[in-house]
């Protein structure tokens, strides 16, 4: 073979350079650097509020609460040790949407928001405009957080969309939702604390309660579902009808964040789910904690059944959604992530999640992810966190992952995560959002162990710790601190080191 002449070399160099320069304008697609070979897939995040993984039969719960989740698990990656970084909505949603831990984004107080200087670090603004970015949350606190990201949202439905009846005042001011929400929904018409409006605050409450009474239906013997802290009532089937219709009509490719309030308390299952778990099975009894709320065992068991029934109701609606997505072909073209913002604790004299506790039912949340065309399920036991969702979606969409992201790719999505990667959770709702956390619960899951630190609470004179081996003791009954287990010293040291590292007053980025 003759060696190429200088002229040949110049020809080849010129053609190669021109090809490279023009390649982006050529009609065929470049090989995508996304996970599954295409960056034009839809992404759907479906969040069920206050859904604890510990109450789902797909994760082994004895009551058959989630047959449709199990069906979905047959074609999805099921994450068994997935954690919310917080034990209620504000930190949970903020971490999911920003990829940041609560100590960074600072949405740690009830009805709090992401620190102003970090509000542009969110999934909506990181996805390019090729995606139609859609957001809907029935949880008004989550909607309030979403308003911080509205620059990146193309279509944003109010919390009352698909509802029966709503008196959420800020929705009358769609061009100025955040100020109106703070002033009206969380202040003048506050449903939890005393309203700052003397007459109207009380009048609104009376009117809402009267209207609700007139709406009582046999179909919902415990009342029509509603968020506890806002004047809004909805029927779950109608909400899912709305979601199904919306997903079928969204311009593709889309990114959809959908946050359903159920199965959050009050637990109001439809009539056909009431009584389905009255079969005598009872969970392992657990001792009361120093932070117990004094709920009797009878109340706890009753509420546990009601919660499980409500989950079964939600699962039934999820099954309808799944069928519809399959039928319309959307599922085959989408990443579908099903998760929660936090869990629920109905044991140890507690019911709910407004507590400093950090037990598994409060923070171990479901995560099931199906990729386009996936036909087989996978069970993943590596601990993961909600902060991992943002980088995973960005990678799936073929985007660069920003350096500020604190999460990692989920296993099965290109992660090289070690089994003993520490996963952190915290609660600091009773202190300052932006100062040092003086009263807080800080927890770490590492490998099979979990350590919890309670700092600054009046109930303890000094830092208090609990350590559990979740492999041998998944119900967290055998505190290794009390046994002077040698592993405790090492875990304590690591947790305190991390807490000292992150426990600083917020400094604007």
């Amino acid at each position, binding site marked *: 073979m003759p060696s190429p002449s200088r002229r040949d070399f110049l020809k080849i160099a010129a053609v190669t350079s021109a090809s490279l320069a023009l390649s982006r304008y050529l009609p065929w697609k470049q090989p995508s650097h996304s996970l599954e070979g295409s960056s034009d897939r839809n992404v759907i995040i479906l969040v069920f509020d206050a859904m604890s993984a510990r109450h789902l039969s797909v994760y082994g719960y004895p009551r058959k609460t989630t047959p449709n989740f199990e069906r979905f698990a047959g074609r999805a990656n099921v994450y068994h040790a997935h954690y919310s970084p917080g034990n209620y909505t504000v930190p949970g949603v903020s971490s999911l949407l920003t990829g940041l831990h609560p100590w960074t984004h600072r*949405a740690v107080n009830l009805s709090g928001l992401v620190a102003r200087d970090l509000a542009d670090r969110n999934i909506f603004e990181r996805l390019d405009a090729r995606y139609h970015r859609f957001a809907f949350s029935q949880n008004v606190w989550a909607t309030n957080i979403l308003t911080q990201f509205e620059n990146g949202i193309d279509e944003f439905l109010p919390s009352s969309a698909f509802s029966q009846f709503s008196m959420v005042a800020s929705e009358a001011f*769609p061009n100025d939702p955040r100020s109106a929400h703070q002033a009206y929904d969380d202040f003048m018409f506050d449903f*939890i604390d*005393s309203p700052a409006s*003397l*007459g109207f605050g009380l009048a609104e409450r009376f009117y809402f309660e009267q209207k609700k009474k007139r709406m009582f239906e046999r179909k919902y013997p415990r009342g029509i579902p509603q968020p506890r802290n806002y004047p809004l009532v909805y029927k779950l089937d109608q909400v899912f009808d709305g979601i199904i219709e919306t997903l079928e009509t969204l311009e593709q490719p889309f990114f959809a964040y959908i946050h359903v309030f159920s199965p959050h308390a009050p637990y109001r299952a439809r009539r056909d789910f009431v009584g389905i778990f009255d079969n005598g099975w009872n969970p392992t009894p657990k001792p009361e904690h120093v932070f117990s709320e004094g709920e009797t065992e009878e109340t706890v068991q009753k509420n546990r059944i009601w919660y499980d029934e409500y989950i079964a109701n939600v699962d039934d609606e999820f099954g309808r959604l799944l069928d519809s997505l399959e039928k319309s072909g959307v599922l085959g073209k989408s990443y579908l992530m099903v998760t929660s913002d936090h869990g629920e604790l109905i044991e140890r004299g507690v019911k709910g999640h407004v507590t400093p506790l950090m037990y598994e039912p409060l923070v171990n949340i479901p995560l099931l992810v199906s990729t386009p065309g996936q036909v087989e399920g996978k069970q993943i036991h590596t601990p993961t966190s909600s902060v991992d969702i943002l980088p995973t979606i960005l990678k799936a969409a073929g985007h660069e992952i920003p350096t500020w992201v604190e999460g990692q790719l989920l296993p099965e999505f290109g992660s090289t995560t070690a089994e003993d990667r520490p996963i952190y959770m915290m609660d600091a709702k009773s202190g300052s959002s932006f100062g040092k956390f003086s009263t807080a619960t800080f927890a770490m899951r590492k490998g099979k162990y979990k350590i919890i630190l309670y700092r600054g609470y009046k109930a303890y004179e000094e830092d208090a710790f609990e350590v559990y081996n979740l492999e041998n003791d998944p119900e967290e009954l055998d505190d290794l601190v009390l046994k002077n287990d040698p592993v405790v010293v090492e875990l304590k040291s690591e947790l305190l080191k991390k807490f000292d590292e992150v426990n600083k007053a917020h400094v604007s980025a």
Partner: protein
Amino acid sequence: MKSLLNRFPRVQEIIPVFAVIVFMVYAWSIISFLWVLPSWLNFMTPAEIASGFCYVLTLCLVESLSFLLLLLALCFILPSIILKNEFIVRGSALTVSVLGSLMLYFRSHPFFAQLNNSLYSFLLAALFVAILAAFLSTAIRGLRRFMNWISDRLIVFLYVLLPLTLLSIVVIVIRNVV
């Protein structure tokens, strides 16, 4: 028409009572606002906080006007001798006792998540106290003098709060329409 208008108090009588209403309604909301301000400063811009305050003031005005309308409706319905003829004194006494009772209830029940029987009982008691206060205010000379004096003194707040509220309404219109 004139006989219908005669059933209402004169404007000079309405203004002092309105001043009492405005003072109480705005005071409760503004004090509550100052209570939450430190936390708002942490996650809202000064502009957002200022606009939030505009929403608060606007609702306070609507609430004050509503309460005044309620009193005027009572004047219209009831015989003149009960409220209209002593509008400044009895209107002020009713305002102070009704709104004061609500303040008291909200202060003692900071978490009123559910309407319950204690609230209904309290409201009944508050209504009884308000009616009693309205009649005592004209029966006791000192109380009558005090009601006249305080309602007159509080008019100064109208000069401050009403222009501020009108400005707030302009701000809200601009933020929502423009």
